[in-house]
């Protein structure tokens, strides 16, 4: 699993690629929670290049969602077919905001800057 992080207009963007499975989840969770603690409450997790995700990956997403809720922040996900499939299977699509691309996610969050 590869994690890349960048910021754009106070929006944190995490790009994940490869397998989002239990072996890497503790480290990824730590990184994402650190970004949320230090960030401005707007986070994109781009998983377009994630080839596999299990329930521990879902747990990292739920933890990020809850942490941002506490900050009155906003989490936007970009999914691959594998990620979308598991999110729908676990009904988490009913709480997560999911957009089709990182560009679309940035547009939505940039439009809400200052809200």
């Amino acid at each position: 699993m590869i994690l890349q992080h960048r910021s754009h207009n106070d929006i944190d963007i995490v790009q994940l690629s490869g397998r989002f499975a239990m072996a890497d989840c503790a480290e990824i969770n730590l990184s994402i929670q650190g970004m949320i603690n230090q960030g401005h409450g707007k986070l994109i997790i781009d998983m377009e290049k994630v080839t596999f995700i299990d329930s521990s990956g879902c747990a990292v997403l739920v933890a990020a969602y809850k942490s941002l809720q506490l900050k009155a922040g906003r989490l936007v996900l970009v999914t691959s077919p594998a990620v979308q499939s598991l999110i729908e299977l676990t009904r988490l699509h009913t709480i997560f905001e999911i957009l089709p691309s990182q560009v679309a996610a940035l547009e939505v969050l940039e439009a809400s800057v200052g809200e």
Partner: protein
Amino acid sequence: MVTNHQMPPVMLTLQIDSSIACVSPLGEAIQSLCLYATDSLECASQMQLAVVEAINNIVFHAYNNQAGNPITVKWNNQNRQLLIEITDFGDSMEEPPLPTLASFDAENGRGWWIINACVDEYHYKVVACEQQSTGQLPDKHQKNPKKANILTLIKKY
């Protein structure tokens, strides 16, 4: 020429250590085997996911996240049915948890829901055994040396 769907019955046995680092390579192997047998990416992906969830549970609950214990996976393809039998020698369950959906804000507890959704049937049993099948690990690592826990996952295609 024999197409994948006409392949003869095949059984393969894989074994990994109870280390979480071993789960992903096994998952990839299961996905490849299932894809070869079924020509269905959806079916293969679902079987990989079910096996990964089951083995995550074994590593964390049966073996309390301790490496050095065996997990054996028997992969069987017969009569358009994939049958995967996962055996461990860790702490047993009385029975698998009900596959209920965790609340949306729960960070754990989705594994059995996922397994249940990905396969047509699953069965769990605890059987007596004289000695664990590998016989390669020292006795001190055998948490449950006289019992084997067997989870069977079945999916038709």
